[in-house]
């Protein structure tokens, strides 16, 4: 065991003495976190169009129909009355004899979870009556239910915009019945309903788990084969060859050292996210930590695999680059991946990042799950096992001659 611990200690000690390694382990993920937070927290330009489903649960009524006014307002903002830059892409699924309203609402919730919609607006039964009671001096307010996915930036923005629209509708309705009072409580109340528990999550809460996984991905995919192949190209590993140290024990020790550095990396990122950027996502719980550990092990195993397949350091970096792009951008690290072509969907399905990112977000309450629990464990587990088996057999101490 002392050989394994010595290899691990050597890895950690040299990493802290080498600036390049420190940069990739600590500085790069922190910079990425800051940059992405700054850039994407400001989403919300005029060009954004929100996909919204509007469901009217309340039956139409003759005469004064406040629900109809709400419908018309959203239709108008969807380009229905010649608006040049529509705010919403509106769909209005209606109940039928075959499909009750509850089924329709459930179906739209599913679309919201899948990323097809940014918000679901429901005008509940009794809305008009409550509204009329408030305008007559009563205590009941008309409640509009707005469902959003707090794990997605566009969905959160849709929530804010819908709120402003409803505030305008409220004012118009009060003016229509001649009881407008700016200081009074609103008559139309937006009931915030999220498909997830936890509510008040911001983009940083979505981003933080992504940056953690991305940090592990980068040091695993580039750092691990980089340092192993550097050592092999320059004869560092040759020295081990003539000692009793075996390849599997070396990999074990190396992995232990790598795990130590990743834990330090994660702690620094989480601290910055929580105390510097105001993240409130719950990462320090056993299930989330398990997925973070699984992510470290998965990318470490990928690093070993690359090191065992590449003949040179530059060859290893080329393989890492080829793997990095689809793994990073087709794994839902920074953005929910919605509708993608079938070829890309296949990559997503075999991409361990898809499962790891979802596992971390799901267990930390950022996002509802779309993948079976078992798959979030089995797919990364299969990659770990396969990669380590290949690496333990193929990794050589020296450049093949």
């Amino acid at each position, binding site marked *: 065991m002392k050989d394994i611990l*010595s290899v691990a200690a050597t890895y950690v000690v040299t990493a802290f003495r080498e600036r390049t390694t420190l940069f990739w382990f600590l500085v790069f993920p922190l910079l990425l976190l800051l940059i992405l937070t700054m850039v994407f927290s400001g989403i919300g330009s005029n060009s954004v169009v929100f996909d919204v489903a509007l469901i009217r649960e309340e039956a139409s009524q003759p005469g004064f129909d406040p629900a109809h006014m709400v419908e018309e307002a959203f239709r108008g903002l969807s380009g229905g009355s010649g608006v040049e830059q529509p705010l919403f892409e509106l769909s209005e699924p209606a109940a039928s004899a075959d499909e009750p309203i509850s089924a329709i609402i459930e179906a739209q919730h599913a679309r919201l979870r899948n990323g097809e919609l940014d918000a679901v607006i429901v005008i509940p039964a009794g809305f008009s009556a409550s509204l009329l009671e408030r305008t007559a001096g009563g205590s009941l307010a008309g409640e509009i239910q707005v469902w959003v996915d707090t794990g997605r930036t566009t969905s959160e923005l849709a929530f804010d915009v819908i709120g402003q629209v409803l505030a305008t509708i409220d004012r118009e309705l009060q003016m229509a019945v001649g009881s407008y009072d700016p200081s009074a409580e609103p008559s139309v109340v937006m009931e915030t309903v999220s498909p997830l528990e936890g509510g008040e999550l911001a983009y940083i809460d979505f981003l933080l788990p992504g940056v953690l996984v991305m940090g592990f991905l980068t040091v695993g995919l580039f750092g691990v084969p980089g340092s192993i192949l550097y050592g092999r190209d320059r004869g560092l590993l040759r020295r081990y060859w003539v*000692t009793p140290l075996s390849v599997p024990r070396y990999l074990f020790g190396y992995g232990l050292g790598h795990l130590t550095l990743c834990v330090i990396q994660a702690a620094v990122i989480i601290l910055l996210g929580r105390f510097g950027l105001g993240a409130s996502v719950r990462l320090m719980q056993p299930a989330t930590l398990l997925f973070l550990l699984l992510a470290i092990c998965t990318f470490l195993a990928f690093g070993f695999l690359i090191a065992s397949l590449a003949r040179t350091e530059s060859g290893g970096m080329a393989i890492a680059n080829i793997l990095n792009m689809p793994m990073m951008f087709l794994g839902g690290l920074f953005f929910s991946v919605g509708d993608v072509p079938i070829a890309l969907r296949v990559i997503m399905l075999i991409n361990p990042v898809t499962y790891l990112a979802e596992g971390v977000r799901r267990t930390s309450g950022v996002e509802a799950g779309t993948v079976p629990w078992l798959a979030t464990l089995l797919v990364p587990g299969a990659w770990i096992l396969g990669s380590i088996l290949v690496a333990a057999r193929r990794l050589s101490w020296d450049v093949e001659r």
Partner: protein
Amino acid sequence: MGQIALSVQSLRKRYGDVVAVDGISFEVPVGQVFTLLGPNGAGKTTTLEMLEGIRTPDGGEIELLGRKLTRVDRAAKQRMGVLLQEGNFEPYLRVREVIRLFSSFFDRSVPVEDILALVALQEKEKASVRSLSGGQRQRLALGAALVNDPDLIFLDEPTTGLDPQARRNIWDIMADLKSRKRTLILTTHYMEEAEALSDDVRIMDHGQVIASGSPNELAAGLGQETILEFSATGAGAAAEKARAALDACCHEIRVDADTVTAHTMDLMRAMEELLAWSRQQQVKLSNVVVRQPNLEDVFLSLTGRTLRE
């Protein structure tokens, strides 16, 4: 002959069409310094790498410290120390950390302080590898090869590329190991290194052993010859003309630019002929050396080439 530390029979290794080691055999008694001497590409390093467990032999038998092996295993490595011809250490590690790291690979190990003292690196124990000179790095490599107090030590060209002082330092350490009755297997293309340290020498060329014996025995194999060396400068190709002048009394006359090397059984006659010729031709002689044959001469005599060609 005492107990045998290493026995090799008909060892073979081929890389594609190239036969690197062609069925060599030898035995090394415990406590001896055994040297494989030869030019680059002779097969010395490949032979050593098969004995160190780096390469798998294509054929032959190895008996290492009393165990017959088809290839060197982990148990054998526990009792071996290896100084590779090529190889580096993690540049950001410190000297003491390198020794401690390598000590951790073995079941038994010598205290770090003892190793640092043995290779005279006590004052550099906190220095990083990248700050060491070439000679210091080689001493560190030797230290890393000795952390387990090995019974059998392989040293593959341990002084190649070092300056004379650094080379002398390594020789001193090797002499110390020899005095402690350790068995050393050495490869070198420095004949003075082989002469200074070896009990037994195999001269290799093209993957085969072409001569064997102690340095004195090998040199004696050239008979009662004396070597005459000089530089000849004057009109025309003076050195080439000297060859003709010495032809009657010398053999194996070799001309390299202005320098002539000739073997003779009759030194007095050769000197008289040379001096008479130089006076007659008004050729200036310089750097005249008369010496006994060494291993370089043995190799030259056997192959017609020098060790460094």
